[in-house]
């Protein structure tokens, strides 16, 4: 036999143990509130039907869930309410495909399925004591919202907290009802921007990377967390590097078509990393290690 | 006359909006008694009928499919039924190759004023399908058995 055969070590034969949880079985959840954010984004607040499961539900900021519209299918969304506020689990959904279009038909009282929490999360422990810069574009604000509110709820653990949130127009800005609270707070620096002038807009105008360069945040003892459409991410990362943020100081979340959400079904890989289990949160340094397939 | 010979069969009719659907309406207004096996799907024009509609119906539960449009040269859209005529005639050749009796699918032309004619078409086709009896269906996957369920208690 060849060398390959003699050096080959077979993996251990797996055993099925009774009582093993079924990772594909969703938990039924009831929609308690639907918020229309923009013309194509809705936010859903859910509670698990099993009260005990809801009480014991534990997740970390940045983790995602698979929302099931039974009969249509599943899609992946970040849990965008923080673990510190657990009256409900919140998801924001932009209408794009079959599942999201179906989700947009939900009304309070409707039943959906939820498989969560899935994936990794923002390394908020390692961010303690640092200045945090959030840069969100459009629906990309959703994952940032989780960490942002989590940090506000643990305000003393972090240094300066800044938020740069941009959208195409005021009408495209999700969470607009929360923005006054954020901009009014003295302990955070909140900058809002839109791409083009609009009537009645009292904040900045300009593309996120340009506004960011204008803000010129100092990289020392800082962490930047960014999420948004691919083109915005691309230029924001360039801007951050221009501002001398190192790739270990920058975090983002990735999107991929996902199905199982638990690293088995095989489609969300970038090389050997699976976005559903190794992500969705990656530092720029980790991203640079991955093959270029975004 | 509700049903011929006991069991009602499933016949799907694709009717163009401008002529045949009107013809069926005329038959109804005239209270021309017809068998009830036919279920009508209204389409804008016989030219809108994707031949796959017919095949899908025949494979997934219909015992017969009837297509009816405006008479040639009378199409509301001038030429829709000319295209339809060719497509329908060609797709018919697929039935014998699949083991489906070609008599399970017919197409015809009925105008909005031809209520009597519509009655005749429905009677003749329904009779034809009853002569053939219920169609054999290819099996579905066992994993889809659950789709036969209705709401739980």
């Amino acid at each position: 036999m060849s060398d390959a055969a003699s050096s080959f070590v077979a993996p251990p034969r797996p055993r099925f143990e009774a009582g093993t949880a079924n990772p594909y079985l969703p938990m039924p959840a009831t929609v308690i509130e639907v918020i229309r954010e923009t013309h194509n984004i809705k936010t859903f607040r859910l509670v698990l039907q099993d009260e005990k499961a809801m009480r014991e539900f534990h997740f970390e900021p940045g983790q995602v869930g698979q929302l099931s519209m039974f009969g249509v299918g599943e899609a992946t969304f970040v849990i965008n309410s923080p673990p510190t506020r657990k009256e409900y689990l919140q998801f924001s959904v932009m209408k794009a495909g079959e599942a999201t279009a179906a989700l947009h038909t939900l009304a309070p009282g409707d039943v959906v399925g939820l498989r969560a929490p899935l994936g990794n999360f923002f390394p908020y422990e390692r961010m303690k004591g640092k200045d945090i810069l959030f840069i969100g574009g459009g629906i990309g604000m959703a994952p940032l919202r989780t960490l942002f509110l989590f940090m506000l709820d643990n305000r003393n653990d972090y240094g300066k907290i800044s938020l740069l949130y941009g959208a195409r127009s005021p009408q495209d800005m999700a969470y607009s009802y929360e923005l006054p609270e954020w901009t009014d707070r003295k302990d955070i620096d909140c900058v809002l921007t839109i791409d083009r002038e609009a009537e009645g807009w009292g904040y900045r105008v300009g593309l996120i990377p340009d506004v960011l360069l204008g803000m010129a945040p100092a990289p020392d003892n800082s962490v930047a967390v960014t999420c948004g459409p691919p083109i915005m991410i691309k230029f924001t990362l360039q801007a951050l590097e221009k501002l001398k943020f190192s790739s270990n100081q920058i975090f983002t979340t990735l999107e991929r078509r996902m199905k199982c959400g638990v690293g088995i079904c095989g489609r969300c890989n970038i090389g050997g990393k699976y976005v559903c289990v190794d992500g969705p949160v990656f530092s720029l340094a980790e991203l640079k290690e991955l093959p270029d397939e975004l | 006359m509700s049903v011929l010979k006991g069991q009602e069969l499933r016949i799907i009719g694709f009717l163009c909006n401008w002529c045949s659907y009107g013809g069926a309406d005329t038959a109804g207004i005239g209270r021309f008694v017809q068998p009830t096996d036919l279920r009508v799907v209204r389409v804008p024009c016989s030219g809108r009928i994707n031949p796959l509609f017919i095949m899908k119906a025949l494979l997934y539960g219909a015992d017969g499919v009837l297509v009816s449009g405006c008479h040639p040269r009378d199409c509301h859209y001038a030429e829709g039924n000319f295209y339809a005529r060719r497509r329908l005639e060609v797709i018919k050749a697929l039935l014998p190759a699949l083991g489906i009796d070609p008599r399970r699918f017919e197409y015809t032309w009925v105008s909005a004023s031809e209520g009597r004619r519509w009655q005749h078409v429905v009677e003749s086709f329904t009779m034809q399908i009853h002569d053939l009896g219920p169609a054999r269906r290819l099996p579905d996957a066992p994993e889809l058995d659950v789709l036969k369920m209705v709401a739980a208690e």
Partner: protein
Amino acid sequence: MSIQEELQAVIKEALPDVSCVIGWREGPEPLRAAPLFVRTPADADAFRSGYFAVNNPAVFLPEYKGGKVGVVVKGCDARSVGQLLAEGLIRREEVKVIGFPCNGVIDVDKVAVALAGACDPGEIQAAREEGDELVLTTPSGEIRLRKTAVTADKCGRCLFPNALDADVFVGDTLEPAVSADDYADVAAFEALSLEKRMDFWEQEMSRCVRCYACRNACPMCVCREHCVALSRDPRWLTQSDGVRDKMFFQIIHASHLAGRCTGCGECQRACPARIPVLLLKRALSRRVEDLFAYRAGVDVAGPPPLLSFALEEPKIKERDW
């Protein structure tokens, strides 16, 4: 010079003008050639034509639209090129068609039948043609098969062994062996009872793995990833493993090829489950030929029959209810 050598020379000559020339090379198995993409003159040395060059290179042409490409074609392949041109799916000025007289190609499935269990066709180590015979080297010695027994069915009814509409034709034209396609295969199948015909498909389609090789190997299936079979809305098919859905996909394929199928048989050859899906397309081709005297890829002067109409259709006898 053999036809193959002449073709190699022609390919080399064509190269400066085109980004590549598509043809055949030896494949990983002796009985099956693989597609070859000649980009440099040196690549042309690997070119092989002949009995094992079964693949229809026309399937690749739409990918190269927008730039000029060369293609070496058998008679049947040329019909696919002709039909693609007739439907405007490729542009005449963007393809250089190189034709040659084809003596027929192998059907590996028939080899398996002819071997009658002597060995797996995959065990064949080498193959060569000797006159009317195919000589196979197998682990248990040489096996000789009559070529007539293992030549593809489509070759037996081929009317166009010489590529039509070729820019360059190498070799002397061949006389076709028959004067018309009698669709005897379709007639024989339809001579069975309806029950038997459906039994046949129920059995055959149960082997389908839904890999869609039939569709992707089809030179006329140009929708590729936009195929209606993959659409979720409207949902023509479920994702299940049911015979009914699998059959319905074949109906989609056949009906979308009505009046377009050139009969190259790649759908059937590509099928890893060996389902004779060409039969359905041929049933429709027969009808189109009867009704409109149209043969896809041959009678391409006018618009395709299902994209046109006549006020009076002499061959269509309508129901006179």
